[in-house]
């Protein structure tokens, strides 16, 4: 009898598990809830909700289910994405683009049109077809499009994120599989630490020796550990702007938390792809640039190079001179990338986009080829693999 309720909770984005459902049944069988709905509510809450931030959501779903009203559930599903979308859009839109949207009747109008169009699209393409890539131009013309390969801003990826959010299934993914959460960051940090401490076991571990000797009832048992190698130097290059901002923040946090484990940690920002300049302060990106050549001269080749970016852009931006969206670049991004890789043989690219989606974007393939396939997803497993290849 509680099974539909259980699925409703899960549909509502809660991580309720089967174990918890069984616990609730067990409790009901033990006669804990008695006859009152209030008691049942308290019991269900204690058994099914494990995070106070989900209490509100639970209340709404509980109310909806036990009053037989499912409208509130659909509200629940739609409220959040819009907020999220709005935030995303605000992040990635420039002043001009915002003005353009205003002239189109404001954000709300636009969103409404967008949603209608998406509903249609969703029905027609239910086989899992990736219509996003091809339909990318027409529905979202309002905020910039790409006639003949001229890119304006972050258009391509913004379309993508808009679609992603409105599609319910995807939204749920977003909710419960935040790739690197606070807990995960710490676990991931361990991996970084491990690689900062690698080396030959050539130091006497006094504590462990005493411990092991004592355990041996006095027979000497010498223990060695690797010296704490703090020799790891990291050059971190972050793609900044638009869709990448959230990920960049996570990466910065992650690496600066691990900072004490590295001998040096230097970071630079780039937009979409590396060219002749990078910068250290995003607010002064126009005035205070650092030449990429200077970087390669200043930081020796024992630095490990870590790129973080979604590698999603027009292939022109990588392959051709003048392909950059921000300025006229004399030499193609690929040339600069090769220069960097020649200087820093140990390099990886961390991509926050899910790996399954990489194949749909030609630019990701280009970058992977350039990187000799050393592109890893920004997940614990990906980070693990990446760090292994950096060793």
């Amino acid at each position, binding site marked *: 009898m509680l099974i539909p309720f259980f699925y409703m909770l899960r549909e509502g984005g809660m991580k309720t598990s089967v174990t918890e459902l069984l*616990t609730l049944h067990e*409790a009901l069988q033990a006669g804990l809830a008695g006859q009152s709905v209030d008691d049942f509510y308290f019991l269900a809450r204690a058994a099914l909700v494990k995070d106070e931030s989900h209490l509100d959501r639970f209340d709404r779903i509980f109310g909806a289910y036990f009053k037989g009203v499912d409208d509130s559930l659909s509200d629940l599903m739609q409220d959040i994405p819009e907020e999220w979308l709005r935030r995303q859009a605000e992040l990635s839109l420039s002043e001009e683009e915002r003005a353009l949207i205003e002239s189109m009747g404001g954000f709300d109008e636009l969103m409404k049109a967008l949603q209608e169009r998406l509903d249609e699209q969703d029905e027609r393409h239910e086989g899992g077809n990736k219509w996003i890539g091809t339909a990318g131009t027409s529905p979202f013309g309002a905020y910039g499009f790409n006639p003949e390969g001229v890119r304006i801003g972050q258009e391509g990826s913004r379309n993508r994120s808009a679609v992603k959010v409105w599609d319910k299934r995807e939204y749920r993914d977003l909710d419960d599989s935040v790739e690197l959460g606070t807990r995960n960051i710490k676990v991931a940090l361990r991996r970084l630490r491990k690689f900062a401490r690698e080396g030959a076991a050539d130091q006497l571990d006094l504590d462990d020796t005493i411990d092991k000797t004592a355990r041996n009832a*006095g027979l000497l048992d010498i223990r060695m550990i690797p010296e704490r190698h703090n020799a790891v130097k990291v050059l971190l290059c972050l793609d900044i702007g638009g869709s990448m901002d959230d990920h960049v923040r996570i990466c910065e946090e992650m690496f600066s938390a691990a900072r004490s484990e590295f001998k040096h940690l230097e970071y630079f920002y780039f937009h979409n792809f590396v060219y002749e300049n990078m910068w250290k302060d995003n607010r002064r990106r126009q005035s205070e640039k650092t030449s990429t050549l200077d970087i390669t001269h200043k930081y020796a080749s024992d630095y490990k190079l870590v790129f973080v970016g979604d590698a999603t852009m027009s292939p022109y931006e990588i392959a051709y001179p003048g392909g950059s969206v921000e300025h006229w670049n004399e030499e193609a991004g690929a040339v600069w990338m090769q220069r960097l890789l020649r200087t820093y043989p140990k390099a990886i690219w961390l991509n926050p986009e899910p790996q399954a989606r990489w194949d749909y974007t030609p630019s990701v393939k280009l970058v992977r080829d350039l990187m000799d396939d050393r592109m890893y997803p920004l997940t614990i497993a990906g980070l693990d693999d990446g760090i292994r290849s950096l060793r």
Partner: protein
Amino acid sequence: MANDRFTGTSSYIATEDLTMAVNAAVTLQRPILVKGEPGTGKTQLAIEVAESLGRPLYEWHIKSTTKAQQGLYEYDAVARLRDSQLGDDKVHDISNYIVRGKVWEAFESEEQPVLLIDEIDKADIEFPNDLLQELDRMEFFVYETKKLVSAKHRPIIVITSNNEKELPDAFLRRCFFHYIKFPDQETMSQIVDVHFPGLKKELLSEALNAFYKVRDVRGLKKKPSTSELLDWIKLLLAEDIPPEALRGENSSNAIPPLYGALLKNEQDVHLFEQLVFLDRRNNPQ
């Protein structure tokens, strides 16, 4: 069953939802995880549960350096080394050097005990994971003596957390969960009532008004909680402050006396004084 139901005690007011969560945990012998603002009586809960059910209480306070293993047992290798140097006969039996932890003690208890694991979020991030098996099966293996220790009576386990770290899902699934909401004014007056039975009605309501007003000040780093309120009332009583003094001439801009007991942070005190000052300037009497 009747005497197994927890309903709060003479010194602890438990809301209906809290009693339900506790009773569910007691009946199904699952751990209960309690979260809530600091000072809302999380740790007190375990003590009160033990008292009201008449069970022995084992408290395990977690620190940042605590390992899960320490709750089970520790092997005192140094003592054994010393004994071996002194030629003590004890050295041949390794079980002489196994020091029991709190969990083991609770497992050995002759009647069903209450085990408090206090502030589990202080420990290392893997700590809860390391205890999964022990809490689930209520048994663990002592490698040194090759002995399996299982609980004589499954303890009632109360776990508190201050949310400093997220707890792993696998761990959460095995627990009942309760978030202690900050009590509303009605519950609060009950709480104060059990602590200060003879308190004058007038003083109580004035004190609560003043207290909730302080809590409502925006931007406080640490809002005063139940335990601070109780301290404050104790002070008010000790100083014999009349209810009228709490009201002030104009209720909106009076500083409650002895407010140092409510605000524990320098910046908060500063902010509060500033607000009151501004308020006075805007509404001169």
